[in-house]
């Protein structure tokens, strides 16, 4: 442009035109900028900073100046820490104990609501969904009182059942220390998680079932298929994509389990650390031990684990086998 210096200077475009051009070119970016600004400040920066932190030794209360580079030490320290491995085991056990029942209950439930409870579908779904939108803290505190050893309603109920003739022998005579006994604390935590998330998964599966074309069921019933057969051979295979989504969400959520065990078992992780999940241990490492680098490294190790398991899940449920077979 500048080369044609001899050419008569083009008239400067008016302010209005320039504004027009500017906004046409940049308005989209300005409109989407709030997300990116917030994401950069509250999303990307903390992520990158935690990565940076994971290679440093840092006691937050000592100020930023006390940060010291120590290479892979935080990672090796975590990987040789028996408590870290125990927290992973706990997380895995609680994730399985709470994750598997969620789906085993939600899929048949969604199918039943879809086929038999059409008229009250909205109400029933809303009721099942209610725990999901209730505060975790409120739920956990209520369950703590229910599970209480001496004063809990569950033990009172079991005790009353024990007094019954004939079937009384099926119920324990002694009060069970649900949250204070190694064998019961993980199922106790898992049951609260199941209670909370069954409704959420039911809604997911219900929407998946509703998306299955009705003519498939009609064709099946013409061919004489029973309800059980149409569930097994139509609903389940066609729910595959939804299963992938639902299981991925459960997987990520359960591996990051924090509030429920934290309130039910306290920050110590309960008896024998049985309810100490990895995120709780991370929280403890940062908050009580004041070791930010170690906690950051732990979060990255957990991220790697979640990423790997999601990949496995993708392999199992991600591909719709139907398209390949048909």
């Amino acid at each position, binding site marked *: 442009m500048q080369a044609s210096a001899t050419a008569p200077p083009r008239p400067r475009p008016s302010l209005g035109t320039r504004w027009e051009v500017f906004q046409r070119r940049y308005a989209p970016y300005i409109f989407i900028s709030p997300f990116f600004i917030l994401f950069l400040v509250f999303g990307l920066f903390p992520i990158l900073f935690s990565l940076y932190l994971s290679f440093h030794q840092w006691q937050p*209360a000592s100020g930023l100046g006390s940060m010291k580079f120590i290479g892979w030490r935080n990672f090796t320290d975590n990987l040789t820490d028996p408590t870290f491995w125990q927290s992973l085991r706990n997380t895995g056990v609680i994730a399985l104990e709470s994750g598997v029942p969620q789906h085993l209950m939600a899929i048949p439930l969604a199918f039943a609501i879809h086929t038999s409870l059409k008229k009250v579908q909205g109400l029933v779904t809303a009721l099942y969904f209610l725990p999901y939108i209730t505060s975790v803290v409120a739920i956990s505190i209520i369950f703590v009182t229910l599970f209480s050893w*001496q004063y809990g309603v569950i033990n009172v109920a079991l005790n009353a059942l024990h007094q019954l003739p004939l079937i009384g022998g099926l119920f324990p005579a002694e009060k069970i220390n649900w949250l*204070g006994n*190694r064998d019961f604390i993980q199922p106790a935590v898992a049951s609260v998680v199941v209670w909370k998330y069954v409704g959420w998964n039911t809604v997911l599966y219900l929407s998946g079932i509703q998306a299955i074309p009705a003519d498939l069921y009609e064709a099946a019933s013409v061919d004489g298929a029973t309800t059980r057969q149409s569930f097994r051979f139509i609903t389940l295979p066609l729910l595959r994509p939804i299963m992938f989504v639902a299981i991925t969400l459960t997987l990520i959520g359960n591996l990051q389990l924090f509030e429920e065990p934290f309130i039910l078992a306290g920050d*110590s992780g309960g008896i024998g*650390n049985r309810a100490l999940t990895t995120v709780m241990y991370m929280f403890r490492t940062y*908050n009580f031990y004041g070791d930010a680098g170690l906690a950051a490294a732990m979060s990255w190790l957990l991220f790697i684990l979640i990423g790997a398991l999601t990949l496995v899940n993708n392999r199992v449920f991600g591909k719709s086998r139907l398209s390949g077979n048909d």
Partner: protein
Amino acid sequence: MKKSLLPLTCVSLSLALLIAATASFSSAQTKTVLTVGVFPDLDSVVKAALPGFNKKFPNIEVKINSLAYADHHTALTTALATGSGANDVEAIDFGYVAKFAEGGGLVDLAKAPYGAAQYRSQFVAYTYPQAMTDDGRMVAMPTDIGPGSMFYRTDFLKKAGVQAADLNRSWDSYISAGKKIVAANPGTFLIPDASEVAQIIIRTGLASGEGLYFDKGNKVLVSPVSPRFIQAFTVAKAIRDAKLDARAGGAFSGDWTTAFQKGNLASEVSGAWLVGHMQNWLAKDYAGKWASQQLPGKSYTSYGGSFYGIPSQSKNKDAAWSLIQYLTTDPAQQILAFKTTGAFPALKAAQSAPLFNEGVPYLADQKARLVWRTAANNIRPIDVNKLDPVAEQIVNDSLSAVLDGSKTITQALTDAQALIARRAR
């Protein structure tokens, strides 16, 4: 000439006015605004102190920023980490002092111009070492303390025919008396949790130069041959095995609260501050039935305490120190604090107030403050180590493994020693 003079006069006049105005304005503004970060109930203490403080220091205006206990310390951690956002004076609970002592986030009060060392002899002996670092810096001034005491139900003891002295002669005596009390009062427990007893034993009988879990040279003291830890674990296990404890876990847990509210506890070991909770909400219905005495086996230990520190980032350090001095070294103020919230004075001069010879109404007019004063002056200082929180957690975990029978004492202590050692390297 005349024409041009007028505006000039106007300008100079208005300028003079402006200068005068700013001058008078700034003289009103020499009032320093001092911010104080506290948590409940300590905020009530500071609030109660302000009229007296303002009389002495009319030029300092104090602004109280009160946050919930945990939030306050989290906010302070963040402020110290980033180097901004801290208040001029920060309250610090005992459990956090060691954490904040690391690094240079808080000023050294032992140095000039503060010179906190001059007051050392005026304070309960164990408080100063709690706020001192290994390299001799003093990061906070003690204000209140929690002398440990045993609380027991006189009516339960009477029913069982047990004397109060049977409960605190020794730990063995505590257990055998406890068995009688629980037998005579069905549905009651001797103590909320067996682990509380272990905590006391771990904190008593320390050799000089020993911390709770580490010695001066950072050597781990937890070991399967340490008499202190063996005794702590053995006594706790005996209480659990005799079914004497309510297995309520830590203080303020759900079961702990319910057991108190239902009146199912025969005794509890805690700081003197527990009485405040009991009379206000925890065991309101049992006024006059509780009494206080020293811990079993002549044990003296402290349950918490509060401190004030000045962040290095503060711009009003002198005013901050004036306020801290007033709050901690003024006997009248320390007594006022004790009256306001039951915050037991760390200043010895405040402990001779007439109040101490008065009965405590909740404890059936027992002169319990004298019991607590004796305890306070018998508590020995314990060296703090920055890894104490880690070691405490590990020891608590191994204790719970012993209590529920999944590990033997030797095995639990061996494991704990190894776990702490790998952190300490």
